[in-house]
């Protein structure tokens, strides 16, 4: 982070409109719009899936058709028309990519624009990247090197073909098919995503990273991520999201399942920067995501998220602390500006003894946006000596925005200790004055103060992501005061 200076930031700021708003001119293979059994069969056949996978999808579709879209979240939006979405869109390709060299140059250009040039990544940072554009995973780097350690890092489709036993065993084990409206929809129509397996006792030597991008218009993205950390293993996983600027609302309904077996640790970081819509609230991504992990004995799952994008966000990365002594963490920064709405938080379900959870949530609302923290801390009867600490702070940047806190604390064990604190306040006038008296402009002062406010969360991110996140925070709040 030391290399990144305020001058770099100033340069970035000149390009303050949503900079990932370009559309790549890539031929896509998009199926007709609509959702029915035939479409699900079509997706499955396009992906040359085995029968069990098709059955899984059809079962999900049948369940979904009996469900109602939830309305409890503190967000207002026009419900998507599920029959007008194309559920499969893939960059056209004649054959599977054998190596990086096979990748379409236009696609490579797209990645470069996103700042994820594979060559660069490979050479400099040693981050293994999976890139998911619209519906399919297009390139996974570092496969061989990881393979030597027995680590499987591939697209979800590849995993269905090559590691069916793992997929069958774990898919839906944390987020069951019938879990909720969007997760069920995802189970029926998911097109690709990332899969990762870390064998027993292996410490993954590099950050694994997936970039998601919605490119084509009129489509949604429904990816699925499955991370399995076998006993005593460790992995740090990064996820980045962008989408082009479009006037329409596009739906992103993903499912992420994490399985941390005994003594394993998974660190999952997200920098979510889906297109938030324009200044008047037109367009933007509906981000309805189900993320959940389960911790076996002594395992640990740590979620870190920096959310600056999406028109509407509905997302609660959660931990089921099933094993004794397991640990769940949730660190979140959610920024909303203009007409953005976010309803996000976490669930910490304490089942095992001596389980521990920490929740640090920083919400920043600007413009006319609405930002809600919604969290559940649940201590079950047998969760002796469970501990939770939650701190939820909201910062208000305009008189027309809203900041809300809805924590649910449920305790059924008297040896538990739960502490929840929340504060809501305006950005400190005294702090702004102090910065300005030292010659710092208001915009920069806000950037500094907000980044300082979020430090506890940003510190959880791997270095490269932290820099990106800092920039994003500053950019998303441009012009938000005054």
């Amino acid at each position, binding site marked *: 982070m030391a290399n990144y200076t305020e001058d770099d930031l100033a340069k970035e700021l000149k390009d303050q409109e949503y900079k990932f708003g370009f559309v790549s001119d890539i031929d896509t293979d998009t199926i007709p719009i609509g959702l029915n059994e035939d479409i699900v069969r079509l997706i499955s056949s396009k992906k040359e899936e085995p029968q069990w996978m098709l059955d899984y999808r059809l079962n999900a579709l049948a369940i979904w058709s009996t469900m109602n879209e939830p309305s409890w979240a503190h967000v207002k939006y026009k419900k998507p028309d599920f029959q007008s979405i194309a559920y499969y869109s893939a960059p056209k390709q004649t054959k599977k990519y054998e190596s990086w060299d096979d990748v379409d140059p236009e696609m490579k250009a797209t990645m470069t624009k996103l700042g994820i040039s594979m060559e660069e990544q490979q050479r400099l940072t040693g981050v293994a990247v999976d890139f998911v554009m619209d519906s399919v995973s297009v390139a996974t780097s570092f496969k061989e090197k990881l393979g030597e350690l027995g680590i499987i890092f591939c697209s979800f489709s590849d995993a269905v073909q090559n590691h069916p036993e793992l997929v069958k065993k774990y898919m839906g084990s944390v987020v069951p098919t019938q879990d909720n409206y969007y997760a069920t929809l995802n189970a029926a129509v998911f097109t690709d995503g990332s899969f990762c397996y870390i064998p027993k006792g292996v410490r993954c030597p590099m950050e694994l990273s997936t970039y998601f991008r919605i490119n084509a218009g009129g489509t949604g993205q429904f990816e699925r991520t499955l991370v399995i950390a076998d006993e005593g293993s460790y992995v740090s996983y990064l996820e980045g999201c962008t989408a082009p600027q479009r006037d329409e609302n596009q739906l992103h309904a993903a499912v992420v399942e994490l399985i941390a077996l005994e003594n394993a640790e998974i660190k999952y970081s997200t920098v979510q920067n889906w297109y938030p819509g324009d200044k008047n609230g037109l367009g933007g991504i509906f981000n309805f995501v189900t993320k959940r992990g389960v911790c076996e004995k002594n395992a640990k799952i740590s979620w870190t998220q920096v959310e600056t994008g999406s028109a509407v966000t509905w997302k609660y990365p959660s931990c089921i602390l099933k094993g004794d002594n397991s640990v769940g963490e949730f660190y979140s920064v959610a920024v909303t500006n203009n007409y953005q709405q976010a309803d996000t938080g976490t669930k910490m379900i304490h089942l095992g003894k001596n389980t521990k959870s920490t929740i640090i949530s920083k919400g920043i609302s600007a413009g006319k946006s609405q930002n809600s923290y919604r969290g559940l801390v649940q201590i079950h009867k047998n969760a002796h000596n469970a501990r939770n600490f939650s701190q939820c702070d909201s910062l208000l940047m305009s008189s027309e925005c809203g900041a809300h806190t809805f924590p649910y604390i449920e305790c059924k064990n008297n040896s538990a200790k739960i502490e929840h604190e929340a504060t809501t306040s305006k950005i400190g006038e005294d702090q702004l004055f*102090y910065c300005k008296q030292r*010659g710092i402009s208001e915009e920069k002062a806000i950037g500094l103060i907000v980044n*300082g406010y979020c430090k506890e969360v940003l510190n959880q991110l791997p270095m490269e992501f932290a820099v990106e996140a800092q920039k994003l925070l500053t950019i998303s709040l441009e012009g938000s005061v005054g």
Partner: protein
Amino acid sequence: MITIKDLHASIEGKPILKGLNLTVKAGEIHAIMGPNGAGKSTLASVLAGREEYEITQGDVNFNGVDLLSLSVEERAREGLFLAFQYPVEIPGVSNINFLRTALNEIREHKGEKGISAKDFMSLVREKSALVELDSKLASRSVNEGFSGGEKKRNEIFQMAMLNPILSILDETDSGLDIDALRIVANGVNQLKTDQNATIIITHYQRLLDYIIPDFVHVLYDGKIVKSGGKDLALELEEKGYDWIKNNTLN
């Protein structure tokens, strides 16, 4: 350097400054003394540009520019520095990052290039030694968890880093023990050149034992009622502010 003419300022409709006149030239140190409520801190706030105060009359010329027409940060970039009586804490923002941002904004304003990381760090080392500030404090969050004395020393450290033309020290001596007072004063003295000037706002004269002023002014009821040399401070200390009050009433 700065000429304040007939300055009137009020807060929430209540007049505080009622026709204040003051001229400070380069190379001078002025002390402004006065009882509580005389308007000392208001003067510092008005010069720095706090928006709660309404300027109802008068003008301030700062090196040829109309100071009151400038925004807070423009005043700072023109070389006006306020050492706060109560420096605010900014959690999560490191002193270093804060100062580097400030320094570069000021440099940019002057048309200079940004300072390199290496030069910046050596400047930090040099200037923090001046006020005997532990370099660890420089990397901590701005004022967060600092003791009262550390906060004041940090103010002088920032002053040293930003190299202002006019520094206003607002009750910098309050809450300082004798050692800290000596360190702060020593810092200020070392920063003195014939190009810059300092206004010291204080209730007590003890700081003036360490920083010798060229002029001492007594502020009372929003106006400067008496001016003199450094001896005036001693006389005040001896006779108390009632002496001024009685003189003014008569």
